[in-house]
């Protein structure tokens, strides 16, 4: 073969390899940040929004609500329904609890508080995205509902898990010549201890001996009536049963299999066997509403789809329910409140239904009190003790922890042998580091079996953290003579992410003297929120144009700025002083209900009092309130006055800034415990402060600015600095008294650490009033990117605003948001159409 042939051959091969292998672009991540300018009427703006981002909106609804929030909250029905019995109603069953609850809450806010303009816009979004109005309404209100709902759930858990009763350190502190407990007295009796432990943002004790032993007394509450909750729990994937010895015989079905069953399946404990005064026929009616094995109760002729205006999905003929019977098939379609009111049940069966404690059929009267121990022996579990000294873990069994049961509380009925306070003596073998601030984080649980929410667990208290100093700290550091001089900052522990934060700077604190506001919001990314990030430039028909940083399908943002320079950022700040709790309180304080509670000081009594209560938040969703503020106000003071007038759904911290350099931090809650004065002032549910020491309202009881290093900076995290007594205890309510923020929320210690860390960062970048350090946008971004301040899991968006020049720099569309490029947007130019968003 000649050389030429080989050359030809090679050329043919190369032809195939090169010509027939065209380059194909490798896939690349599409933009996860959507931007749009919205103009026109509210409905038109919504329509533009909905059409432009239709798949994103549908994705957000499906993946966030349908796939995540709804099933997650459904798990809490078993905790909520025993107290708020309304949620045992049929329309909340079958996995409909949270979807129904979110929808009812959204409708309530729409009817009571959301300005019509935003309702129209939400309707436009729904039409543009070709979704149901209710779906978009839920998407726009779930955040406020969820935060409030979560507080109720945490509170119910809080009153059942163990708690630190008291805390003491070595006896030598009583004679060391130091005011160790910070009460103003030196070496008084008890100078070494907190007889009633309370969570604090500062140190609990000063100048403790490094080899001291810490003594905790931990108790586990015993709430009679808890059987109703705990016996309803079921081993996962198994049959729900109750020990036969725990059940009143009259409650067991006459069915031969039930009569011999031990343990007794819950199916054998139907409500119809509970009340002998309830006629068999009437009870059967209720039963057939819950048990589809009773076909005789169904009357398909009663269902006429689409004929009734109030109940668009069907018509319920009177004959369907006046006899106390309602078809099971009706429930899923009964999506409007008008469709499931009490007329669907006979009066007698309503009473029975209210008495039902355990879903779906077991009455609390059926359970023998001696069986309470099974459900909650009211014991702290010593083996669950874990104590961190800074970031070093000590656990039960390693020799550093010794425990013993103290004598039972006098007058208290013991439900088990271990129903008594547990004394814990903790002494790490190497002692504590001298002249240091020591952080202690305590974790423990009780022995109550909790099968739901899954997985199986016992009741565990939140991670409780306190700080103390050791001998020599005050001398070595020149501070620490008072407990409030030592922050409860803690240390970085695995899994404990920082919370949302924001800070502002101006004048000497910025290089050009102009104000900056920086915000990093993080709460829940769920591996998908970042894909729906959106920046909206909105030109309302009336009012100032503005920009919002938010998410597709949601008509509000977590931060924003208008063309006048008014800028806001907000964070949640957990509070039981919210409208949901307020509604519960109002119901409990009705005279007739107080009597019931006095007679039944337990959860069962509480459930009777609250039988008609639903979780409906009063107030304007915070995002919509702040959006409305941008539309109508020019300055931070105007905005402050506007916010004062708005009813709040929950606890929030907001930071306001304006073009003139005003910086205001606002701490808000539902204000259920005070009477609104009607004039802008610091009062229950509304506290604010600025970095201006000349106004006493801006300094704490120790004469310090609430949240500033210098007169030209300010910061917020996710806890209250000024509104610290957001919820005063109500003594008469005993264990059911709502608590102040530091006492219950799991966010509290995380937020404290974030707040103090941010303070250190600001001090490093901005310095003191006497030096020349100052920041600009780049440095502000650098500050936001400080690793200790970044929630690497649930970071959502981060922005730096320049109110005086109308520029905003935002990082979003990825997790963490601070790792994304901060894109600059010129608000005025974008709205004028001079630049594309």
């Amino acid at each position, binding site marked *: 073969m000649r050389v030429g042939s080989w050359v030809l051959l090679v050329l043919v*091969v190369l032809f195939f390899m090169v010509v027939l292998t065209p380059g194909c*672009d490798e896939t690349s991540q*599409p933009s996860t940040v959507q931007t749009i300018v919205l103009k026109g009427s509210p409905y038109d703006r919504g329509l533009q929004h909905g059409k432009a981002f239709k798949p994103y909106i549908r994705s957000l609804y499906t993946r966030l609500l349908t796939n*995540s929030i709804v099933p997650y909250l459904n798990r809490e029905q078993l905790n909520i329904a025993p107290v708020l019995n309304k949620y045992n109603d049929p329309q909340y069953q079958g996995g409909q609890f949270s979807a129904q609850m979110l929808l009812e809450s959204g409708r309530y806010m729409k009817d009571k508080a959301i300005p019509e303009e935003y309702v129209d816009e939400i309707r436009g979004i729904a039409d543009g995205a070709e979704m149901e109005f209710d779906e978009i309404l839920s998407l726009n209100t779930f955040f406020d509902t969820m935060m409030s709902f979560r507080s109720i759930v945490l509170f119910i858990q809080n009153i059942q898990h163990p708690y630190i009763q008291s805390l003491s350190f070595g006896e030598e502190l009583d004679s060391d010549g130091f005011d160790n407990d910070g009460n103003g007295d030196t070496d008084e009796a008890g100078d070494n201890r907190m007889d009633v432990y309370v969570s604090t943002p500062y140190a609990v004790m000063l100048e403790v001996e490094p080899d001291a032993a810490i003594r905790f007394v931990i108790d586990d509450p015993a709430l009679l009536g808890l059987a109703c909750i705990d016996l309803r729990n079921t081993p*996962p994937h198994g049959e729900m049963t109750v020990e036969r010895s725990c059940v009143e015989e009259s409650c067991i079905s006459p069915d031969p299999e039930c009569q011999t069953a031990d343990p007794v399946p819950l199916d054998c404990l139907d409500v119809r066997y509970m009340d002998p005064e309830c006629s068999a026929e009437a009870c059967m009616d209720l039963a057939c509403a819950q048990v589809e094995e009773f076909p005789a109760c169904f009357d398909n002729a009663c269902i006429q789809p689409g004929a009734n205006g109030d109940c668009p999905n069907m018509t319920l003929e009177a004959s369907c329910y006046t006899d106390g019977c309602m078809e099971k098939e009706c429930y899923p379609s009964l999506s409007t409140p008008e469709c499931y009111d009490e007329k669907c049940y006979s009066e007698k069966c309503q009473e029975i239904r209210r008495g039902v404690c355990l879903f779906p059929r077991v009455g609390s009267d059926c359970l023998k009190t001696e069986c309470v121990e099974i459900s909650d022996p009211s014991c702290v579990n010593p083996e669950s003790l874990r104590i961190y000294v800074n970031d070093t873990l000590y656990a039960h069994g390693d020799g550093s922890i010794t425990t013993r049961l103290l004598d039972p509380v006098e007058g208290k009925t013991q439900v088990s042998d271990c129903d008594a306070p547990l004394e814990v003596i903790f002494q790490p073998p190497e002692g504590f580091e001298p002249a240091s601030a020591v952080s202690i984080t305590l974790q*423990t*649980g009780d022995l109550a079996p909790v099968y739901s929410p899954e*997985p199986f*667990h016992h009741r565990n208290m939140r991670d409780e953290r306190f700080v103390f100093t050791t001998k020599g700290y005050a001398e070595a550091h020149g501070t620490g003579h008072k407990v409030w001089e030592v922050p409860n900052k803690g240390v970085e522990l695995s899994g404990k992410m920082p919370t949302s934060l924001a800070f502002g700077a101006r004048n000497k604190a910025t290089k050009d003297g102009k104000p900056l506001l920086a915000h990093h919001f993080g709460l829940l990314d769920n591996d998908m929120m970042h894909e729906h990030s959106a920046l909206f430039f909105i030109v309302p028909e009336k009012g100032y144009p503005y920009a919002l940083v938010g998410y597709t399908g949601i008509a509000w943002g977590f931060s924003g700025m208008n063309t006048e320079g008014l800028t806001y950022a907000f964070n949640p700040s957990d509070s039981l002083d919210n409208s949901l709790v307020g509604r519960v309180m109002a119901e409990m304080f009705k005279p007739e209900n107080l009597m019931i509670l006095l007679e039944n000081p337990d959860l069962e009594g509480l459930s009777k009092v609250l039988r008609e209560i639903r979780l409906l938040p009063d107030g304007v969703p915070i995002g919509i309130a702040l959006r409305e503020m941008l539309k109508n106000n020019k300055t931070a003071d105007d905005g402050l006055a506007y916010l004062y007038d708005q009813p709040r759904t929950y606890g929030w911290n907001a930071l306001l800034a304006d073009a003139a350099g005003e910086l205001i931090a606002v701490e808000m809650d539902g204000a259920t415990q005070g009477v609104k004065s009607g004039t802008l002032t610091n009062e229950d549910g509304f506290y604010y402060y600025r970095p201006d020491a000349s106004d006493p309202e801006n300094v704490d009881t120790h004469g310090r600015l609430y949240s500033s290093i210098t007169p030209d900076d300010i910061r917020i995290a996710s806890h209250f600095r000024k509104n610290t007594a957001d919820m005063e205890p109500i003594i008469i309510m005993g264990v059911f008294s709502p608590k102040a923020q530091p006492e219950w929320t799991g966010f509290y210690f995380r937020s404290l650490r974030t707040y103090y860390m941010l303070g250190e960062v600001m001090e490093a970048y901005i310095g003191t009033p006497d030096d020349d350090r100052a920041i600009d946008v780049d440095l502000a971004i650098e500050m936001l990117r400080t690793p200790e301040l970044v929630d690497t*899991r649930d970071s959502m968006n981060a922005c730096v605003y320049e109110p005086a020049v109308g520029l905003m720099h935002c990082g979003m569309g990825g997790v963490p948001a601070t790792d994304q490029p901060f894109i600059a947007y010129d608000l005025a130019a974008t709205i004028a159409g001079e630049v594309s968003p």
Partner: protein
Amino acid sequence: MKTSTQSILSVLSIILALTGFSLPAHAAFTETLPQGMLLLDESFVVSWLGERWNNDGKRDELLDGIDRYDPGGGLQGIIKPEPDATYMMLVNRVNIGILDNLTFALAVPVVLYTRVSPNLNWESGDYQSQIGRVYSDADFWEWAQSMGQSKPQTWIGNRGKISDLVLGLRFRWTDYIESLNEVGFKSAVSVLGVIPTGSNADPEEVVSAGTSMWDLNFQGDLAFHLSFDKTFERELDGRLIIGLDVFYEVFFERELTSPTGAKHPLLRNFAPYIGDTYTVKPGDFSGVSLDIDIIAYKGPVLDTWLTRGKKNKADSTAEGGVESAESDEVVEAEPERDMSEFEKRFPPIITFGLNYNFVHVQQTDYNSDFPQWDFDQEDLWRPGYKNALTGKVTFSFIRLGAPFNLYVSYRTLRLIPGKNSRAPDILTVGLQIPIPLIGW
């Protein structure tokens, strides 16, 4: 759970060592059947897949670990999938010699069985105050179950399901160029196309697999091959054949149904935001194969019913001459050469083959209503390449009077690193039966 679902689905593509053509004895790229000859080929194929070559060209688990967080809480743990998949197939092939240098092929692959095991292991994460411990594997799936998601289990299906049919033509054009033949150089072009008789994976299943060419991922919908063989008749007694094949295989865009969540309402409810259907344009294949066949043992052509007539004819030619095919002239006999030509008509008894196959895979393109979802899928099908090695041994019994060949091949993509490709092993055992349509 998004990541896990989509990733699990991604492992289901398996490369099978199938081609439309199946020719006797040795696997030279240019070989065709004699005119009038039909070759039945039945092969049993088993494929195992448990690894992949990642974007860095490193061998890796098929799926990355999936970090799971309690919403708003700490790290629950990491799901560490070690999935594996097994396909069993019966590949039925028919090749027909239309001309001595033109062969038609039909392949009917039938999937006998598919099994996909997600093998989800668990690495615990942070201590969770809420439950007072770290999440164990059981804890996590109990949690997931309460959210409505049970642990994905092994999926078995596709029993007896037909795949796409493959049709092909091979034309050896160098037969018309005597000078190339004289130096033992042959070249052929082949075209293969599929008839889409296979089925797609059930979109509603968390773990499942289909039987289409896209699911099997072994051949494009339309394939073009240009092949070359070099034999060494004079130098090595024809015991070595070196072949080269360059190819381009096109996948056509296909429309698939989006999962609605009918079976898994939380995990497979994409339709609301990606649309009722979406399209996939799989990345085309292109590449080159190098093939070496060594005839280890030619063996004698025994005087059997298969060879008798031809052997006698060869014998007589060897003794006195042979008639020219082109004319009636009697040419001078070349006895040894004629016997050699005669024996060449029968495959050698034992042939060893070694094949190296390089396949460049282009980016696969998804198109739905939701660009982010498209990217999430495309990210699993980035451009890459595969390096496959195949060893094959063929036993032919035709010389001995039995009209069949047996072959066994083993193909692996695990030895030579690839990129963004799966690394299966494939065992093939086959039987070939030549049937003369116009007499032996």
